[in-house]
């Protein structure tokens, strides 16, 4: 059944004050990159998939599961979607330690699906020494890395990563990219990845959706979309 339908199929229409989001794309690739200028609607698209927002009209299907379908009146609540969302601005829980933040999703999704290797993730993200600290004492990049770990460890059926590698140094970025590749290939978790960085797109993505002004303006392989 899963093979019949694309891994990710999104159509979402929403009007908000001055901005209209009108996104339609499908992807069967392990990692799909959302690419586009600042303010074009990338975060909004991820929010639609994760159920953070409800589209005025639209349909979201992940690996055969219909998560949103406004026509059929389907809207699976967020906590049952099993998406791992890495927020653009981390959104760590300030009252929990880093360790507790990471455990949060893990605990709720225990027993559901395969779990990613915790130790490897913590090591690659370099947050082992931060586990006892509270988010308020972390640097910007450290917060980001914790947010990645939290999402990875919540046994997601799909990973939605909103600019996860910005604000990190090149060495760390390379390591994390390797980790993402492993999650993608070894654990077979489909990933939708937002970035501004063409290198990341070229290395990770097999399909690129280019967005501008709330619409998909191009879709295809990195080579096709990023050529000009």
């Amino acid at each position, binding site marked *: 059944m899963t093979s019949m339908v694309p891994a990710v199929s999104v159509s979402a229409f929403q009007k908000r004050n001055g901005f209209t989001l009108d996104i339609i794309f499908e992807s069967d690739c392990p990692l799909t990159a959302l690419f586009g200028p600042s303010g074009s609607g990338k975060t909004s698209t991820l929010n639609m998939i994760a159920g953070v927002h409800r589209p005025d009209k639209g349909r979201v299907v992940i690996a055969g599961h219909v998560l949103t379908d406004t026509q059929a009146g389907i809207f699976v609540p967020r*906590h049952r979607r099993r*998406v791992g969302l890495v*927020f653009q601005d981390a*959104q760590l*829980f*300030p*009252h929990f330690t880093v360790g507790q933040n990471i455990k*949060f*999703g893990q605990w709720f999704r225990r027993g559901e699906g395969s779990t990613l290797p915790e130790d490897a993730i913590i090591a690659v993200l370099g947050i082992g020494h931060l586990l006892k600290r509270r988010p*308020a004492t972390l640097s910007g990049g450290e917060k980001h890395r914790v947010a990645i770990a939290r999402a990875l460890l919540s046994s997601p059926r799909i990973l939605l990563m909103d600019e996860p590698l910005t604000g990190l140094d090149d060495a760390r970025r390379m390591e994390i990219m390797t980790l993402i590749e492993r999650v993608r290939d070894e654990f077979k978790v489909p990933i939708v990845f937002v970035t501004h960085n063409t290198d990341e797109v070229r290395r990770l993505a097999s399909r690129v959706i280019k967005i501008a002004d709330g619409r998909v303006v191009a879709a295809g392989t990195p080579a096709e979309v990023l050529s000009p």
Partner: protein
Amino acid sequence: MFGFSPDEWTAILLSLRVATVGTLVGLPIALFLAYVLARWRFPGKVILDGILHLPLVLPPVVTGYFLLLTFGRQGPIGKEIYDLFGITFSFRWTGAALACGVMGFPLMLRAIRLSFETIDRRLETAASTLGANAWWTFTLVTLPLALPGILVGAILCFAKALGEFGATITFVSNIPGETQTIPSAIYTYTQVPGGDYQALRLAGVSIFIAMVALIVSEVLNRRIQQRIAIFE
């Protein structure tokens, strides 16, 4: 001890019990209603809100009289509760706790609601994407982040309950050992020519208890603030 008569000691201990029970029993109800008022939209919300403020707006005597009419032996609710749980309020310390709790309730409710309203709701969203349903999100995210306000609400309610007099005496009157709280005892003294000294001594006890409660709440608050600091 300290020259207080046995009756005065009874009043002091009773006041402590009444204020504590009134606050603790009211707390979950306040949490629930504060959440409802902060988050839900429904018709008649302002009416509900207004009703919950009534004990603050009405003279305490009126509130006490109203309690007498509804929670008294013959009152519709009082009768019901007696039939269901076997709890009587009239002329019992339970009634004093009810009166004090009711009088302090709006203060507690308001502080908690204020906290709920100023929480960053994106954190609740984050919790839900991680698999927490509404109840867990409330317990693990909303509630701990609102703790400072909950603490303030509880301490306001407790302090108010310590000082509450008008509603209590109207509802359950002033029976030494059963419903005579510190304020009722003080009132009695102030009404007797020459009773000022004893009244002041008892007022001192109230102040002392409130001070201890305040210090405890300050210490707790400082800890909480350190824990949930969104800034360093």
